[in-house]
């Protein structure tokens, strides 16, 4: 019998994908022979839009590149501008940036663990983790007034301070979160049904990981010790001691363990930062003139290395602003992981890289494919394009 590869499209709408993507799989039996990714369903034309707005307006745009890692984008953005201007951010603001970034990391990893549990059919764990994630979102609401887009960063520092009353509340919530993280680590390491779905699935060798440009926990779960917070320190990370978590097994379970333990590390970092936060102002004045020049800014977002490139032409609007989100860096590695695996493992391997397609697709234009889904509601579409 001649094996003829069957092509299975996965997406753009599929219950396993929280955002639309398209992968074309060629399979033989239940094994995957080839993967072709086709992304771009969430394009919103953000890079072009950056060039049409002023630097201050762009802070809001940068924040909305992604909902879960919004603070990482604004940190990266403001750092790029501050480096261009030669601004030194006040020490207290640096510590606050660290605290917010680490809180975001905890919240993002918690969301991800819930999603992975849901992918493998373990709804109970999903419900528990998302209930505990509410603790972190409540902290955000206390500090900034928002659960998701916290709008804490601005050029020259941060916009809101953390009072001492807030510090006590944060510490209490963190202690609760600490216990829960320990519990989840135990569950993940010992629950047989999870282990059967995650051990030796989605293998990515360290050499491949580096060569294919993988970043973040995906890279660290293959044993490679790269973390932008340590290699290229920013904000106050050079003053705060912490461990970079790596695991050697290169499978989906390693990725789960890396993220769980990173949650634990983040809690430690926040405790340290709260304890050693210096007093002082939280924002410096920005000059009226923006010189010509270019900068590259890098940040360790929850999903991996986030890099922004800025080119300024001396006006109040950027000449060119480029964003490369971590998920785009992980897609070639994802394709390598899927080759030779089972069809039934596609959702969990895909979830294993913590994909955030909104972050990834933000170039050129409003994608026609996305609009095609809404062609049925003609009113909505007409309103959308003619009123702008």
């Amino acid at each position, binding site marked *: 019998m001649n094996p003829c590869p069957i092509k299975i499209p996965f997406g753009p709408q599929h*219950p*396993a994908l929280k955002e639309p993507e398209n992968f074309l799989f060629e399979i033989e039996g*239940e094994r995957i022979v080839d993967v072709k990714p086709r992304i771009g369903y969430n394009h919103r034309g953000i890079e072009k839009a950056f060039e049409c707005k002023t630097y201050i307006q762009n802070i809001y745009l940068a924040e909305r590149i992604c909902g879960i890692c919004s603070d990482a984008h604004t940190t990266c953005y403001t750092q790029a501008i501050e480096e261009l201007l030669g601004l030194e951010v006040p020490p207290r603001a640096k510590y606050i940036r660290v605290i917010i970034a680490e809180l975001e990391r905890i919240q993002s990893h918690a969301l991800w663990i819930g999603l992975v*549990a*849901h*992918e*493998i*059919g*373990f*709804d*109970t*764990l999903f*419900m*528990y983790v998302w*209930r505990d994630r509410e603790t972190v979102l409540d902290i955000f609401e206390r500090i900034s007034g928002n659960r998701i887009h916290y709008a804490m960063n601005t050029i020259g520092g941060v916009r809101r301070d953390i009072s001492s009353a807030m510090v006590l509340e944060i510490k209490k919530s963190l202690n609760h979160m600490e216990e829960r993280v320990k519990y989840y680590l135990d569950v993940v390491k010992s*629950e047989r*049904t*999870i282990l*059967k*779905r995650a051990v030796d699935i989605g293998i990515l060798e360290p050499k491949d990981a580096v060569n294919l440009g993988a970043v973040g926990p995906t890279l660290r779960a293959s044993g490679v010790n790269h973390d932008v917070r340590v290699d290229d320190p920013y904000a106050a990370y050079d003053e705060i001691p912490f461990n970079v978590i790596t695991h050697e097994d290169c499978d989906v379970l390693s990725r789960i363990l890396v993220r769980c333990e990173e949650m634990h590390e983040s809690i430690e970092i926040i405790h340290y930062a709260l304890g050693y936060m210096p007093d002082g102002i939280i924002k410096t004045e920005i000059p009226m003139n923006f010189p010509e020049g270019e900068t590259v800014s890098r940040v360790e977002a929850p999903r991996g290395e986030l890099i922004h490139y800025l080119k300024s032409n001396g006006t109040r609007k950027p000449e060119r602003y480029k964003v490369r989100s971590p998920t785009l860096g992980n897609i070639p590695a994802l394709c390598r992981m899927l080759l030779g695996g*089972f069809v*039934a*493992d*596609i*959702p969990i391997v895909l979830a294993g890289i913590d994909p955030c397609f909104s972050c990834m697709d933000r170039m050129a234009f409003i994608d026609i494919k996305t609009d095609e889904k809404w062609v049925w509601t003609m009113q909505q579409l007409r309103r959308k394009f003619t009123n702008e």
Partner: protein
Amino acid sequence: MGLDHATAKKEVYKRMTTETMLLLRILVFPGVLFLFALAFFFEWVDRKFFARVQNRYGPLHTGQQGILQPLADFLKLLSKEDVTPYAADKIILFFVPISYLALPLTTLFIVPIASQMSLIAFEGDLIFIVFTFTLTIITVFFAGWSSTSRFSTMGSIRATLQMLSYEIPMGLSMIGPAMAASSLSVSRIVKWQSLHSWIVFIQPLGFAVFTVCLLAELQFVPFDIPEAETEIVAGWQTEFSGRKLALLRIGKDLELVLASALITSLYLGGCQRFWLIPPIVTFLVKTIMAVMLLSLLRAVFARFRIDQMLSGMWRYLLPLATIQIILIQLGLGR
């Protein structure tokens, strides 16, 4: 002659009342209406218990503590549009929900609910029950096959594969109680348990095997592979909507009733009369406990992959079931 006429009339009258009584028993209690009510009730128990384990509320607002929610869902589905795919086989698609609903319903007549004797009892009705389980899976297969969508086909293939693995261990674990009671009739097995002891105490292995196989039959996690939401939308149920989906859902609930009724009758003593407590009450208490057990198992496991389930069933469950039978033959389970 007048006397003949009177006795004749009395005969007819008596037959009419017995037949009316039988009709009432079939249609109302413990028949169709009662079983439907029980189906809704058990769905509520399952959803509520599952939710509480997950630290959620579950159904809350419709009726006291949400008890009317399953009925509300059923009525809502009845009123929704029935969308059939263009290429689907309409005749088979029409009969699938009816068959899926009718099979557990008729099978439940065999299980004694309100008295020691069920509505239908004959020597060998246990085999009939096994037969209806197989028919149910064939119905599921037809559901996916006639829907002609990619997801439905995959779902029905998986359902059939699943049946191939649990059918034998399940049959073996049902034969265990029959061997103890020396009868292939569920009613007699129940009677035997009321005279001796509950079979779960003398055949615990069979009880465990039977429960696991029922989880697979009901397509509960960890065996909900045929309807794995994150992989193939809703599996074989994908293309059913409106009235057909309503019938499918109540059919699923009736299967839950059947599963818990079988656990109760074959292993937990069935409907017995305890002092002054009528049999129906003991039946309800035991079946609710069985539902909660199934619900708990559903909540604490993740889903298996199809190849893992197949190998697990054949490598572990089948030997265990066989060991139980051997033990019974050696005299340990009578």
